[in-house]
């Protein structure tokens, strides 16, 4: 499983918990993966949007600039499930080899 897939899985998992504010997604992932630049995470997020796995919308605001939120689509839920399955298989394979 590539790191890009892992980042995709993280983004999709966060969105599976509920709609997410785009900027917050970048900050949270960058905090967990400090060696990955936010621009790279943003590129993955846009890639997911382009593929139709997520969709964005403008949230309601009270005075300030409009915030962009992201949510999973049906295709995104399927992709999330597939990536999660791959991740579990990889983890089990590593555990079987004694790599924790």
């Amino acid at each position, binding site marked *: 499983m590539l790191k890009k897939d892992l980042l995709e899985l993280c983004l999709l998992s966060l969105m599976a918990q509920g709609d997410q504010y*785009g*900027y917050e997604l970048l900050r949270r992932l*960058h905090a967990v993966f400090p060696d990955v*630049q*936010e*621009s*790279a995470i943003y*590129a993955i997020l846009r890639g997911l949007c382009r593929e139709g796995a997520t969709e964005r919308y403008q949230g309601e605001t009270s005075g300030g*600039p409009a915030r*962009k939120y992201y949510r999973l689509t049906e295709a995104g839920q399927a992709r999330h499930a597939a990536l999660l399955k791959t991740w579990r298989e990889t983890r089990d394979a590593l555990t079987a080899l004694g790599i924790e």
Partner: protein
Amino acid sequence: MRWDYLFRLSLAARWYLPPAEAAEVLEDYREIVEGRSEEELRRDLGTPRAAMKQLAQPKAYRRWLAVFAVLAACVLVPMVMAHNDVYWSPLIRPACALAFCLGTGLSLLWFRRNGRRKDRMPKGIGVLLALILLGMAWVWLWAGLVLTESWTLLNTIAAYVIEPRTISWYLALEILAMGAVSLFGLVKARLGDCRWRAVYVLGLGGTILTISFYLLLTSMNFDGFTPGWQTPYMIRYMVITLTGLLVTGVSLC
């Protein structure tokens, strides 16, 4: 400093991405860069170029690069041929005609479909168009004297005002300047407003017109001064000038 980063980011976005996507990405990045120093931005986001390059869709970006290469070649190939004095080559006239037709047609089509347009006419377009027109008028002045066979006047000018070699140098310099302005217009049409293509088109027309006259002067081939030798030259210069002006007008609309 943050605005400096954002400025370079916007240039990179407009170079790598289609206009609509670039606008969307820049809107997002305005929020992302908010409240961070240049150092933090470089650390968290990388250089503006690297940040935008990873967003580019390879197929669309390669298509733009191919179009850019063709449009740049339309200006550069005739310039290189003229620089190497290949006036004797049977290829130079067809090459100039092809470059002019391809450059004007392709730029018109490409930027109509893939261009960004602001409400206001961008500053600087008018000045550059006026400069190109001035250069073209200068070429027309000399071409007029040659094509009307005003040898007495030309000899007087050559003897007392300006040496023939200097005229040739001026023309070579003008080809270089027109070509450079044309390429500048091409880059600006991608990075800014698509109406900058008018500068590219008129610059290309000016370059080809100047090259055509430069080749006539350097070849010293006046077809044995048979009656009506000027007609093909006159027609060629008229076609280049009028087509250039017409397409420039369309490009500005």
